[in-house]
């Protein structure tokens, strides 16, 4: 579904990512694991072209992503970041953000369905200023899902949450992969989380993939 080939990015004086080749299939979760500064987030940002690769490319269903309009690419490969960055207004306003960029409006039923999917049924009219950290992160998942993505790029989505909220979001990630058939790429520095959520993993060190394969083999090697 999503295949990176020899993907890399350098900025003057620094190689952020180099020679990254991997793929992730529909309904599968791939974990990118590595210490701080190893280039995990930099690699993730290349997958939806928030940053421009200086080498290699990404194929989405076999099509070079440079042939896809950036906004369409980002609709198909949604992203959830460590901090949810909700927009001022209601939860429903946040879910409508993406569709409205494309001139579409979600019906109240679809909004409710998306919220129920992330465990927030009935939250549509709530002001985002009054949400807990875990609720805010669930809203950011629903907001990304409102664009009907085929892949989700998850950048340490639980690292700012307490244990309870973290477990809830982990369950949500499992559901998204299994029930909606969405390909997930999960950046995490937690080996345990990668084992719980991913089928396959790759380990990044200094911007280079040093191991990749089934999660048990890679993380216990």
């Amino acid at each position, binding site marked *: 579904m999503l295949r990176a080939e020899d993907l890399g990015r350098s900025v003057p004086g620094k190689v952020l990512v180099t020679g990254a080749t991997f793929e992730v299939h529909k309904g599968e979760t791939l974990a990118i694991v590595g210490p701080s500064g190893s280039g995990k987030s930099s690699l993730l940002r290349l997958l939806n072209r928030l940053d421009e690769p200086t080498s290699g490319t990404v194929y989405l269903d076999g099509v070079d992503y440079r042939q896809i309009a950036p906004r369409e690419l980002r609709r198909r490969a949604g*992203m959830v*970041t460590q901090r949810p*960055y909700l927009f001022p207004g209601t939860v429903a306003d946040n879910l409508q953000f*993406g569709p409205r960029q494309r001139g579409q409006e979600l019906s109240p039923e679809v909004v409710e369905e998306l919220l129920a999917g992330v465990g927030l049924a009935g939250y549509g009219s709530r002001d985002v200023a009054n949400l807990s950290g875990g609720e805010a992160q669930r809203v950011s998942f629903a907001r990304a899902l409102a664009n009907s993505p085929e892949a989700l790029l998850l950048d340490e989505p639980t690292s700012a949450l307490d244990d309870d909220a973290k477990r809830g979001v982990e369950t949500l990630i499992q559901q998204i992969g299994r029930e909606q058939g969405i390909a997930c790429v999960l950046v995490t520095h937690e080996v345990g989380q990668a084992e719980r959520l991913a089928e396959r993993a790759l380990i990044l060190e200094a911007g280079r993939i040093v191991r990749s394969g089934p999660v048990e083999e890679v993380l216990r090697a």
Partner: protein
Amino acid sequence: MLKTWFHGQLQLGLAQAGVAALAALSVVLLAHRRGIHLEKELVIAMARGLVQIVAVGSILLLLLRRPSWTSVFLLLVMIVAAGATSARRAKGMPGAFEVSTGAIACGAGSVIALMTLLGVIDTPITALVPVGSMLIANAMNTNGLALNRFRSDVLAHVGEIETELALVADGKSSVAPYVQVSFEASLIPAIDSLRSLGIVWIPGLMAGMMLSGARPVYAAVYQFVVLAMIFASSGLTSLASTLLIRTRVMSPADQLILRPGT
């Protein structure tokens, strides 16, 4: 007091400049005590300013009897210099010089041209260059304020902007709120100048006109004319620069180029 010690006009002028510079330096000293270091920037700016204004004064003296089109050349040079100066307030922003120069040319240049054509600004070099330079200088300040505010707002909201981009927003609309705030903030000094005209301050141009024999009412009205022109040229410049710069901080693939560390 200075007049009792200095009798020649030039000596008196230099002494007055020295005292005024001391006042500015004392502010730098106060700022230094609070850990704010403006020494180098201010000393260079004051030295440059003094040399430049004396040089322009001398050039004007030489050009007094030249044809009017000479002023167009002088004003163009001023626009380029203003573009270079205010672009320094936009460190790390790609194309800041081109954007600043283009915006000042569009804002100040068009107002000067229109007002000269309509007869609001007189064509002799002694009128066109000083009034034109006032419009350019104010447009430069407004442009610097707008770009500086835009830069700091974008850098403070990288997360929000990239969240919008990741949610399919286009580059221009994701920075639009910061364009609007920068535009509004940059015009605060020009609006306050107009609002407080005659109450808080009596500008030098009016005083100069009265000293040279103009009727006080005409001098006052013309001062309003100048400030209205300053507002028009500053507003147009700020509008142009904020609209132009938003296309420079985004790549054609809607990627935010201006990021911390750039």
